[in-house]
């Protein structure tokens, strides 16, 4: 246990120096691309807002079912199958059928290639479920259908949220999905979340309006910017259709022209208005405005009276998908509710950093003094190890660009306190060995070997707790789990390589000394 090859010593030194440098790169600027990583400060340390939004899918489901009743009615009308008294109750569609038609209706819903009940080829399950309850049939979204619906409503909502957050212009916002009906928004450095909160509470506003050059437009005009923020267009204030008239928008491949398009469908009112407007407006540019920004301004080529049209114009599949998503976001905006909010002002964050650092310094000093008094030369070895351990820990956190939170700092301080445990176990064991072993080197060997299982057991138990915390905890607490968990590995490394190296050097130089420890 005491022998170290030159190669190993080199490796240990290089490894330690590397991580110390990485840790120090947080403080000093090195002119090297390798050292550009930094520990992120959590919102509780740098100040900022954490918002958890929940999407209310009820209105979306209601609306979709409403549209479905029309589709179902028209579908069976075309096929000359009679259905009566179709209505929505508790997120189910009910309708009456006559005995003779029942089987064919059930077949339509269960058909794998049904137009009415798509998805099957892609998901191996239907969007809708039909329940046979006598002559009154019940149709509702299947599990898969609901999941799909929630996912797409989440995609739309996240798009709206991103645009709103960009509007406020906070630096490096973090917008993430949580489950399939929540969105997490982290806004570092934002002191006053009032504006963003009121923005998030607003429903998205989508309108289709003509681009005009006529300054004297009867309805008034306004200059609006395009998505890129540079180009502008003068747009009439007359709204032809708005988001609520839009039923759906999807990217599609137009096989004839061999180009990607975005196809959209309108409701009845929308179709009528759109038909009228496009019949008089052929050749004009139609601006699609979402929340005051023009997301697209296609030229009207033809009268669109059927209620379904398409936008073309050099889309890649990605841009078509994006535009369709934006259109849908404006079409059926699901209301968002802020269900959790945590805001920390920047001065409190700074105070927390200061307090954390002072606590770390004092805790560290106390432990170091204690260990020196208790173990003298071996205390010194432990202390040097402890310092290197701290730097390696910070280096690892930097390397992974981990987020440091206030509980995270507490985790580091706790690591300092507990890191000595392994060394203490070893030293105490060596002391015992020395009671009946006169050879110092053998005693040290025995101390290291015999304490190993206890050290492993002890660290694994703490690691288990840290792992659970990591997966179950949220925000700041996760930061604690990270520092505690990483701390275990750096501690084991520093105890078994660095401290052992020092002890081996010391012991081999003093192999005949009595009362060594």
């Amino acid at each position, binding site marked *: 246990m005491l022998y170290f090859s030159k190669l190993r010593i080199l490796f240990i030194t290089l490894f330690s120096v590397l991580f110390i440098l990485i840790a120090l790169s947080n403080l000093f600027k090195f002119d090297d691309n390798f050292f550009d990583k930094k520990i992120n400060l959590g919102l509780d340390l740098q100040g900022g807002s954490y918002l958890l939004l929940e999407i209310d899918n009820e209105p979306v489901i209601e609306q979709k079912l409403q549209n479905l009743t029309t589709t179902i009615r028209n579908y069976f009308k075309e096929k000359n199958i009679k259905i009566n008294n179709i209505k929505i109750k508790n997120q189910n569609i009910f309708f009456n059928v006559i005995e003779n038609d029942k089987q064919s209706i059930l077949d339509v819903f269960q058909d794998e290639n049904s137009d009415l009940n798509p998805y099957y080829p892609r998901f191996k399950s239907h969007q809708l479920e039909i329940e046979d309850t006598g002559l009154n049939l019940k149709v509702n979204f299947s599990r898969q259908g609901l999941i799909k619906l929630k996912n797409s409503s989440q995609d739309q909502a996240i798009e709206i949220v991103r645009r709103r957050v960009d509007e406020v212009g906070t630096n490096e916002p973090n917008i993430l999905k949580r489950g399939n009906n929540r969105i997490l928004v982290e806004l570092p450095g934002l002191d006053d979340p009032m504006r963003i909160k009121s923005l998030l509470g607003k429903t998205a506003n989508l309108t289709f309006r003509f681009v005009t050059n006529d300054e004297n437009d009867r309805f008034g005009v306004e200059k609006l910017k395009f998505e890129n923020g540079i180009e502008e267009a003068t747009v009439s204030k007359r709204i032809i259709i708005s988001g609520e008239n839009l039923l759906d928008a999807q990217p599609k491949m137009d096989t004839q022209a061999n180009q990607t398009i975005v196809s959209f469908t309108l409701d009845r009112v929308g179709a009528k208005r759109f038909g009228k407007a496009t019949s008089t407006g052929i050749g004009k540019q139609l601006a699609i405005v979402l929340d005051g920004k023009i997301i697209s301004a296609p030229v009207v080529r033809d009268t669109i009276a059927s209620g379904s049209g398409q936008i073309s114009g050099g889309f890649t599949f990605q841009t078509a998908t994006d535009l369709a998503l934006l259109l849908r976001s404006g079409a059926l905006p699901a209301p968002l509710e802020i269900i959790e909010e945590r805001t920390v*002002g920047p001065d409190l964050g700074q105070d927390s950093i200061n307090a954390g650092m002072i606590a770390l310094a004092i805790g560290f000093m106390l432990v170091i003094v204690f260990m020196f008094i208790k173990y003298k030369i071996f205390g010194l070895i432990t202390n040097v190890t402890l310092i290197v351990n701290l730097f390696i820990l910070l280096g690892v956190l930097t390397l992974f660009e981990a987020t440091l939170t206030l509980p995270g700092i507490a985790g580091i301080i706790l690591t300092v306190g507990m890191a000595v445990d392994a060394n203490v176990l070893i030293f105490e064991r060596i002391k015992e060995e020395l009671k009946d072993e006169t050879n110092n080197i053998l005693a040290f060997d025995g101390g290291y070997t015999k304490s190993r299982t206890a050290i492993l057991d002890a660290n694994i138990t703490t690691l288990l707790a840290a792992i659970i915390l990591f997966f179950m905890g949220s925000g700041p607490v996760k930061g604690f789990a990270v520092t505690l968990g990483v701390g275990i590995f750096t501690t084991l490394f520093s105890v078994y390589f660095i401290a052992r190296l020092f002890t081996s050097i010391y012991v081999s130089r003093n192999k005949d000394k009595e009362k060594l420890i």
Partner: protein
Amino acid sequence: MIAFNKYYNHFNLLSSVLIVVSLLLLIFKGLNFGIDFKGGTLIELRASDSKINVSSLRDRFNQMDLGDVSVKKFGNDTDFLVKFENKDNKKNIIEEIKANLDKSFGNNYDFRRVENVGPKVSAELLKSGVIAISLSLALMLIYIWIRFEWQFSLGAILALFHDVIVTLGVFSLFSLEINLSIIAAVLTIVGYSMNDTVVIFDRVRENLRKYSDIKIFELTNISINETLSRTIITSATTLLALLAIYFFGGEILKGFSLAMILGVVFGTYSSIYIANTVLVRLKVSQKTVLREENDKK
């Protein structure tokens, strides 16, 4: 050598009483859940005007019809912590409060921290907290069961339950707030207490193999004494670090470090006086260890 085993019975009795009292407290008095687990709104406020104090703040907030309002000093004289239920989960409550406070205090105050947890989220956080603690206890049980014989597992788990229950009992007794960081503390306590127990058990098992003629009553005492200086030093350094957090780490970490300090003290105590006495009461002997090992082979 200190005769720890002389007091096995006394301390077992004491621990039983502590556990029963803690359970009674938990059942009848309950825990003081913070907004993380109860839902509601928290505002940390810093005042730059001496007119702003606990009673003037309480007056103001009580007029606003926010349900149950609690106003406390937080750390120093200029910082206050205001908590209220926000029962209707009003959306613009913070803005309303600001407008209201502006009327009486002008610009002489500042919101340093605002937390608002809806009822749904708090219920989920509570659930995941309970799951986390149960899961960690279960994992420890499995781990120790793999590493040791069942008598040892029982001892370790009883010690763990003791530490968690009594720590929570103290929090209940003094109505200290339970929030997310306390859950983190409890989990760390679980890890620490286990750590401590395992070190002693490791030695007990080693001694069991070594000495066939020493009774477990004596043997545990020998093992405790052999590992005693390690127990003391590790507890001491951990406590030193925790005391540094408690006194210098700011108000936010106070509850967390206090829970940890309690946990380390109880954890150290229970490793000696609960974990080991279980071995004694189950009459563990050399045969227990050797038989198990033969089975494994």
